[in-house]
């Protein structure tokens, strides 16, 4: 993709957002889309981790929820203006994720996923049991000030505006990511994902880039968490629970993680689908399960893959599994290492 192409896509995406916010009058639809975009950012974070590190996180809800908690606490303590609180929250999360990352990215394959799950659950349990500051299992409301970045609360919270804010945030994040991953950082992380040992033998210290990707993905998810906190004005331990991570992961895989916009697509489809379930909603679990299985079975590279194929720009050969050390069973016996 050339820079012109990218610029064009960006403009189109922004225009779509503005048009949507202007033309859609139904508050229900707008709030649904807002929700979808927020989760798209969440999923984008998980997708980056998967794409660049080949690592699956079952605990990213930690960053989604923690972002809301940190902002909420900072605001409740009235230590600083909300704008600064947002920044501080993101920095804290990123730094925390980087430190944790330094330790946990050494753990290979699916065990990494389990480790993230464990860490996430520890925070979930601690938040549920804590009394006082975080409101424990009941959660806490977040006191957003009456103005934020120069806009009044009711302006920001107006469905059309809020949607636009989230949408623009998503687009900006995607542009930044594209630029970042296209540079040296992107190549290094891909090399480390492909063959960690060899990477060290060409002079890449492999833990640092992996931890950096982990921190990056946490930061992105954190941005989603902050928008969610803005949207709901409330945060509870459920936002830290692994089932939320699982749901976001589901969006990533259903959307397809080989391209950046796959997870975004997954999130949008998820919410629209859930919404049209309507009266079958009591059986949403079964319907979802079946839909999930169907997509995975029939569209291995997610809906993004299907779309790409329809548009005729897909790669002919399937990309290699980034999932872990296990080579697919049928790939021939040469796959085995000595």
């Amino acid at each position, binding site marked *: 993709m050339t820079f012109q192409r990218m610029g064009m896509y960006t403009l189109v995406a922004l225009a779509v957002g503005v048009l949507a916010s202007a033309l859609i009058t139904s508050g229900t639809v707008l709030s649904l889309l807002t929700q979808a975009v927020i989760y798209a950012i969440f999923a984008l974070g998980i997708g980056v981790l998967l794409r660049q590190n080949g690592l699956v996180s079952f605990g990213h809800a930690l960053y989604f929820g923690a972002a809301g908690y940190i902002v909420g606490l900072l605001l409740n303590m009235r230590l600083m203006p909300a704008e600064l609180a947002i920044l501080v929250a993101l920095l804290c999360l990123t730094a925390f994720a980087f430190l944790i990352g330094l330790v946990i990215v050494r753990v290979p394959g699916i065990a990494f996923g389990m480790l993230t799950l464990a860490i996430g659950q520890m925070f979930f349990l601690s938040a549920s049991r804590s009394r006082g500051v975080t409101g424990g299992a009941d959660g806490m409301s977040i006191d957003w000030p009456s103005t934020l970045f120069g806009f009044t609360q009711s302006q920001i919270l107006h469905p059309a505006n809020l949607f636009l804010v989230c949408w623009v945030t998503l687009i900006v994040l995607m542009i930044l990511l594209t630029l970042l991953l296209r540079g040296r950082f992107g190549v290094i992380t891909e090399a480390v994902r492909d063959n960690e040992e060899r990477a060290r033998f060409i002079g890449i210290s492999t833990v640092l880039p992996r931890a950096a990707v982990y921190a990056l993905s946490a930061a992105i998810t954190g941005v989603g968490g902050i928008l969610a906190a803005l949207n709901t004005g409330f945060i509870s331990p459920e936002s830290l629970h692994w089932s939320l991570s699982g749901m976001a992961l589901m969006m990533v895989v259903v959307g397809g993680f080989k391209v950046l916009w796959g997870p975004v697509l997954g999130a949008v489809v998820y919410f629209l689908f859930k919404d049209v379930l309507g009266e079958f909603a009591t059986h949403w679990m079964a319907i979802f399960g079946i839909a999930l299985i169907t997509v995975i079975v029939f569209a291995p590279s997610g809906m993004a893959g299907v779309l790409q194929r329809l548009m005729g720009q897909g790669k002919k050969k399937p990309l290699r599994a980034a999932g872990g050390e296990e080579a697919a069973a049928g790939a*021939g*016996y*040469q796959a*085995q290492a*000595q």
Partner: protein
Amino acid sequence: MTAILNLENVHAYYGAAHILHGLGLSVSAGERVALIGRNGVGKTTVVNTILGLAQMKAGAVSFGRRQISRLRPYMAAKHGISVVPQGRCIVANLTVEENLLLGAANGRKGHWDVPKIYKLFPILQERAHTPGTALSGGQQQMLAVGRALMANPDLLLLDEPTEGLAPVIVDQLADIFNLVADQGTALLLIEQNMSLVARVAHRYLAMSKGAIVARGGVVNSREGLDDLESHVMV
């Protein structure tokens, strides 16, 4: 003579990559055939096709008189075809001895059993209870050969069995392959080391670009060697 293995007009793929282009070959009981060719012409793919590990989109494979339409990987062994794979593929969490026992999974009885293999490769007996992958490359190769023999095969597929082996071991293996063949097991030997081919094979098939391009008899002499090497030097 009955063919143990017969491939006709095989087209094989890895994903979208078309590797074998209408390849045909056949090995009869007790024969010693060499399959030679440069790197990457598709020799291993022939093995993979026989084992059902590559996708065969056209053509036919038959074991003995039985036509096999859809290959499952365990089918070949059941029909008396065993493999010393390129890369050895020693099963990591099994001991040396268990790796050998695994070779007998097809349930065929015959000349070879564990003691006989140990006699052939004493080092394996010494290491019988260590994990198979804790052996060096060459020791693993011996184990792979031993394991393949445990199947008491009618046909032994040897995919570059001497890659990475010391010359003494290569000599030893040459003798062993001859011994095995003398006992009536057919050999299909894929090899880069032409002097080994010359010492073991009676007939060669030369491959290029996924098809057989030349065939002939093998003579164990300077000229014979030159002839063989001419097919892989292209």
